[in-house]
């Protein structure tokens, strides 16, 4: 057992190639290869995060592709992706590691049943074996190498959790009392996303690269739609992108993000539409707008007219 020395005990190999990134443009190309079209700013942010090994803090409207970026980055750099979805009440046992107590108990019972007088030291060592340790996302991220750690919606976790995360990210190591220190040889590349429901502490932001992800421009949105939905006609993709861009200017409660326009285009193509006519558009509006007020407003505004 190697873990007693504090080394990592799993050395699963990274999927396929190990990505070497030489410039923002090259990273953008690699991301495009996975189906994610990043603009210059985001590609530069990703490049610096890889090269400087600094966590990347992404903010932006819902549905602009923050989470998808982390997934694409993992694929493009040939790294594992470990995702930690934050929520209120998230604590160390759910984010870091936990012991599998019921199995430990069974083990204890089995050993005492089989041997009349087991050696106490060996029994205790056996109890805290790796197979009884449940690795939660942060521990997984330290074990799997290379790895992209996606900490999704950090603003939803309590602020105590931030301080804890900061510590793990800064050291790229954790200490388990029964086992010892577990350190990653290559620190995981952390991507943090936030929806700004509360302000994340400065101490955390200061250690990160900060990027605000914008809605894509018309051409990029068309390209994204066609990449995601190969069966979509160019005309329909253009019309969906135009309508989505107009809706974003309409002052809606929830303006559509790229995720919504992809959903909408998928709904339209599932109905066999080749162009966007007002009738089909009105029927599928629920895929792109999620508030009754917004639907009324869009219907009344004439955005859907050709």
């Amino acid at each position, binding site marked *: 057992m190697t873990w007693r020395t504090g080394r990592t005990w799993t050395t699963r190999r990274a999927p396929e190639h190990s990505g070497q990134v030489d410039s*923002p443009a090259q990273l953008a190309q690699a991301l495009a290869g996975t189906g994610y079209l990043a603009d*210059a*700013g985001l590609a*530069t*942010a990703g*490049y*610096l995060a890889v*090269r*400087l090994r*600094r966590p990347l*803090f992404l*903010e932006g409207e*819902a549905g602009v592709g923050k989470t998808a970026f982390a997934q694409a980055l993992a694929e493009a750099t040939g790294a594992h992706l470990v995702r930690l979805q934050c*929520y*209120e*009440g998230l*604590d160390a*046992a759910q984010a870091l590691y*936990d*012991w599998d*107590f*019921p199995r*430990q*108990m069974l083990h*204890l*019972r089995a050993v*005492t049943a089989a041997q009349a007088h087991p050696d106490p030291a060996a029994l205790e060592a056996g*109890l805290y074996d790796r197979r009884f340790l449940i690795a939660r996302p942060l521990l997984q991220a330290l074990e799997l190498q290379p790895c992209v750690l996606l900490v999704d919606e950090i*603003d*939803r976790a*309590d*602020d105590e959790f931030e301080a804890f995360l900061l510590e793990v990210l800064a050291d790229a190591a954790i200490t388990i009392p029964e086992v010892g220190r577990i350190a990653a040889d290559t620190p995981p590349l952390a991507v943090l996303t936030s*929806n*700004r*429901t*509360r*302000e994340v*502490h*400065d101490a955390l*932001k*200061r250690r990160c*690269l*900060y*990027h*605000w992800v914008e809605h894509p421009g018309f051409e990029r949105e068309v390209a994204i739609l066609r990449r995601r939905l190969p069966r979509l006609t160019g005309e329909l993709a253009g019309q969906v992108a135009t309508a989505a861009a107009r809706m974003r200017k309409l*002052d809606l*409660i*929830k303006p559509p993000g790229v995720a919504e326009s992809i959903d909408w285009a998928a709904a339209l193509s599932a109905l066999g539409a080749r162009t966007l006519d007002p009738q089909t558009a009105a029927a599928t509006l629920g895929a792109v707008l999620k508030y009754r007020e917004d639907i009324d407003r869009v219907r009344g505004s004439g955005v859907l007219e050709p």
Partner: protein
Amino acid sequence: MIEVLVGFAATLRHAGVAATRDRVPALLAAAAELGAGDPAGVYWAGRLTLCSEPDDLPIYDAAFAAYFGGTHPAAPRGLPISVTLPQVSTPFAGGTGAGDDEPAELFSLAASPVEVLRHRDVAELSTVERDEVRRLVALLEPATAPRRSRRYRPARRGTVDVHRTVRAALRQGGEATRLARQDRRTRPRRLVLLLDVSGSMSPYADALLRFGHAAVRRRPTLTEVFTLGTRLTRVTRAMRHRDPDAALRAAGAAIPDWHGGTRLADSLHAFLDRWGQRGTARGAVVVVCSDGWEFGDPADLAGQLHRLSRLAYRLVWVNPHRGKPGYEPLAGGMAAALPFLDEFVAGHSLAALQDLVGVIARA
């Protein structure tokens, strides 16, 4: 090149971006990585390492253009540094005998000067009295009531904590002798203060901002303060100063629309789009401090308040005029707002602000 970049970080700091010195090494590393000779490289290196919120980005762009464009940044646009906090200058109270030149008398005459002062309208105070009220407002501790959170803590009563029970059993050779229990932890609700700083509210703005400061000081991470006027300004950061006067100066520098007109519906709309809907107002106690004078259509205001009331846990409206005898909520905006409020209270005096603390704590 290093001096140039360090100078740029300093410029940005002066412009109001929190580009602290400990961020500079990251800036240098990023610039070296992207090529310091390339303007785009320097732009992104600086933006990614020195900014930390969307509000920083326009300031950054302006500072970048000013610094590297050859001109010296006098006052970056979008940030009226010259705006200082206006004094709350109001007519000294006429008939009460409390003039500026005889404050000592007031305090010696009254049996309990604080008690008298408590009920005085803050718009009608002398300078000395105002200082006293300011001191007393700073002592208030506005805080919301706790709610049950999703997190558990060990407790004497409650559901069985399987983890702790089994862990204890393991220590005793697999024999569970005692059931460990757990209960839900409590956490305070978020408090959001939306303060109207338009012209018609100017006699009360100082006291209300100080109230906001007291709230932020009490719970720095769970309180948000915004000002409404012709536009929305977030002043929470400024309010985190320890000293109330420094906090108000910083807020004054940040608020571009002091004593301007009121477009409550637009400001509320901006709040809901940029903050409220995302979660700042969700489950929070939201307090709007305004007299309800609205330049725009009251129907728009009603629409926004309806939205806000669906997000917030409790919606409280503070109107300084409510404390005056004979007041009726007839102002267009106020009448439109009433159906959506959980509480409608006065906020014109120290006593009224103390009541407000109670309302917030009970909400």
